[in-house]
């Protein structure tokens, strides 16, 4: 577990880091994305977004603007009306269902608001789950999962179960799980929605560090400015697409 004091400094360091990643490859490339829902309403159109390796982007917006829909489209779980999404060079629109699932399994990591740690698996098994889906090598998976748990400060809890952990700890397990298979893209939907502010900021810092340290592209959807502040870039989702927030 990291000492309490270190976090404020970490946040500032990360702010500066944003400028350092500009030279890294673009792992997520969204171009002219448009999505409408049944009825006259349009969620967004002509949405463009590029996220580079090691970069964490926060997307904020009012309820109902389509933040979660955007995430689902990025994950290949929903289809856009127009535009395209490329993950590490692979264009989602060109893939069938099975290929998208494979892509998701190998290249994307998820962090959910409600953690979704399976109660009947050990924490190590939970973390190792994405690896288990890719390869049957149990030893390798568990070694890597232990390493990930150690990285989020829960190295000694691998044999425990969800029941033993607090909300913050569960989300750290979830973060470990999201990164265990070295994904190109990490999608997080309100990762701190169920946590108190203090815990939230610690978990967020951990999350941001983890994304950067693993060289993944991170997209985090939130409606909290405080959460968004940890990101390298903060984009506001509205009817006209994503608008970069200035004045920071």
């Amino acid at each position: 577990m990291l000492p309490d004091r270190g976090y404020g400094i970490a946040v500032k360091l990360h702010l500066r880091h944003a400028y350092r990643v500009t030279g890294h490859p673009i792992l997520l490339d969204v171009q002219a994305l448009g999505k409408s829902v049944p009825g006259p309403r349009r969620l967004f159109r002509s949405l463009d977004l590029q996220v580079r390796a090691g970069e964490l982007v926060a997307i904020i917006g009012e309820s109902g603007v389509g933040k979660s829909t955007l995430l689902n489209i990025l994950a290949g779980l929903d289809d856009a009306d127009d535009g395209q999404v490329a993950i590490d060079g692979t264009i989602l629109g060109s893939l069938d269902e099975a290929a998208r699932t494979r892509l998701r399994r190998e290249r994307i990591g998820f962090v959910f608001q409600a953690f979704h740690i399976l109660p009947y698996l050990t924490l190590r098994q939970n973390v190792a789950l994405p690896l288990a889906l890719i390869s049957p090598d149990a030893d390798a998976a568990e070694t890597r999962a232990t390493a990930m748990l150690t990285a989020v400060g829960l190295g000694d809890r691998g044999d425990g179960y969800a029941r033993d952990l607090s909300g913050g700890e569960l989300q750290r397990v979830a973060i470990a799980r999201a990164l265990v298979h070295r994904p190109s893209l990490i999608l997080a939907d309100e990762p701190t929605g169920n946590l108190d502010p203090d815990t939230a900021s610690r978990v967020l810092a951990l999350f941001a560090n983890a994304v950067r340290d693993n060289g993944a592209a991170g997209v985090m959807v939130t409606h909290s400015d405080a959460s968004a502040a940890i990101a390298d870039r903060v984009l506001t989702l509205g009817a006209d697409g994503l608008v970069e927030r200035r004045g920071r």
Partner: protein
Amino acid sequence: MAAEPGLLSGRLALGWLIGGEWRFHPARFLTTAIAIAVGVALGFAVHLVNGSALASFDGAVRGVNGAAELSVTATSPLGIDERLYPQVLQGAGVADASPVVRLDARIGGNRLTLLGLDVIRAAAVTPSLVGIPPQGPASSSDGVFDESSLFLSRTALERSRLAIGDRVTVTANGRNVPLRVVGTLPAAEADAAIGVIDIAAAQWRFERIGRIDRIDLSLSNRRTAEEALAQLLPADAILSTAQARGAQGSALSRAYRVNLDMLALVALLTGGFLVYSAQSLSVARRQRAFALLRTLGMPRRAVVAAVVVEGVVIGIVGGATGLAAGYGLAWSALHWFGGDLGAGYFGGTAARIVFQPAAAAGFFALGLIAAVLGSAVPARAAARAAPAAALKNAGDVLDPRRAVAWWPAAVLLAAGGGAALLPATGGLPLFGFLGMALMLAGGVAGVPWFARSLLAPLARRRGGSVPAMLAIRHLHGAPGEAATALCGIVASTALMIAMATMVTSFRGAVDTWLGQVLGADLYLRANAGASFDPATRAHLAATPGVDRLAFSRQLPLTIAADRPPISLIARPERGGRDPLLVLVERTSSLPASALPVWVSEPAQRLYGWDPGETIILPIAGRTRFTVAGVWRDYGRQAGAVLVDEADYQRLTGDTGRDEVSATLQPGSDATAVGKAMTARLPGALRGQVDVTQPAVLRRLALTLFDRSFAVTYLLEAVAILVGLAGVAATMSAQTIAREREFGMLRHLGLTRGQLGAMLATEGAVVGLTGALAGIGLGLVLAQVLIHVINPQSFNWTMTTRVPLGTLFGVAAALTGASAATAVLAGRRATATGAVQSVREDW
């Protein structure tokens, strides 16, 4: 009530809670109500059918007996000396007495009881047996004392398709007597096939001079009369009351009826488990809602009340529907299969349905209790949860490391085993059934432990396919959830396996036994009291192709007034001449002076006649016999005793024989010899002797056997279906409740196929677990059935035979059905829309 706010003040919130649940999940309520309804319907229907059949059987018995309050009855068809009649009539406390000659008779192929009555006495004692001729000009030549006048009950008249005025030939006691139908017995029980003639005519024409079979009594003082008559009665007569006669009739079928009732209750029990499953799920799903309400100030007991009220409504709806359905079911069963449901206990009496308000109330109450208990248990669990924790937590309080308690199951099983060892009460294996119920409860309570233990080695296994790993880890971690789904099916499977094992064992035993006892080549049997006299016997023995004939006499012999008569069989037996007697026990040595008697297993159990004991039988007065052995007999539930033919003839002077078993010379054609033997019979006897071959008898016996258990199979099948419905409902609800989990797994990259495989594996494992638990429990219960229930109700024993085919079939069916259910339910839970449900946006 003092500590918490009142329920009444919170009734509005309570109403919203229940009403809202119903509006959103009407199907769930309906399914549970149907489960209860099926149980109630089955129980009620079986009870109604049995009750109606018994009532009409009773009616038939009463009909033949004319409802006399007390009768002096001959212990065997040899009858009693008629000179007893004036003594009885003049006995203290006796107001009037009606002597009766009773004959088993036939008109053509239709059986009836032919009574010879003194119409004057009968008019005072048993008026329902008194016939009246039809009014009108044609009656001028009628006469109640006329030797040729025959009065028939409506049933007898209709069965023989006769009209008043017809001339008929009535066959009884081996005589064919022409009579004329002169009237009906309008007061006789509708179901009884009775004919009435004058007693003097009966004695004369059917050669019963000097003998009567019964004296019906009307009494001025019952106690005085019973005391006086006890002094008066000879050994071959007993006093029997109307109740005793009813008991005699119902005793035969009682155990069978109780067994059926118990089976029907199993369906109800399964329904109760189903309510438990459904309500558990519903409560689990609403845990947050309850927590919220508790936080808002709803009392703990209001939560319980809400769920229990739901149970009450389910119970009322299910119970009422069940009663209506049960009545309809009973009606159709009676209409299509008859009152014995094919078992042959109430042979020949047509049953009409008799509504039984008390039974209806009972089954309704049972349905209600099942529903309320099924709801109360999960309700209490819900109320115990700390509201704050429940509200905050997503509900996953599961802990796979927590040990599953094994001791409640062990205690229940042990208690059940103990109860099963207790003796029968009132001739019924009530403790046996209690034991089975306890063991069943224990078995169901042990399912979580069983599932955990079964899956532990698999769960420890690392690697393998992710879906299988997830499925097994889930079941291993949450065996309670599986148990909730399984309780109903484990109970019904266990009972079905138990019954199937018992029936298989029984059938096997009967089959073996039939093979042993049907050792002759040909059987001849005289009907309607006809018999082979010595001359005929000699003539038959001389038939070409016949090697040896064994003649026997079989008579009912009443030992106790309230028990059905046992069979007295006289056969050449001394010196072990009969190789067909399958002895299960024998005495080591018999005093040379003793009269040997071989008793059947039921007779041994019913009357406590053990080998070596001296017993007194009402044959030619009171004769002492020594029990020489006990033989296996599945044919005569009321018991039978076998005495040597020579002893019998010496004691009774009866030279008639009514059965012949023939051993043929090698190479003889049984059919041809049978025809030749028939041709050698005197003309009067020819139409009254059936010639059968052992294969036919064996087939007939097994057909009867299967028919009598057909309804059992049906009930079992229904119980299984109810159980499967429970598995399906519970599994689908549980699967749907795991929607988010599946959504997350889809995010992680599990394909729908993998999810389906996971669910199928889970379903199959659940089904297999249920099947294994049910089969294991069923095999244990079968031992109770075979070694406790059967001997105590039917008085025969057997060795266990396991119906392997059925076991595999049940296991496969259950596994497949649950897997299919899980996959079907999973389709909904893993639909694309559902994938997005990982978001906490509700």
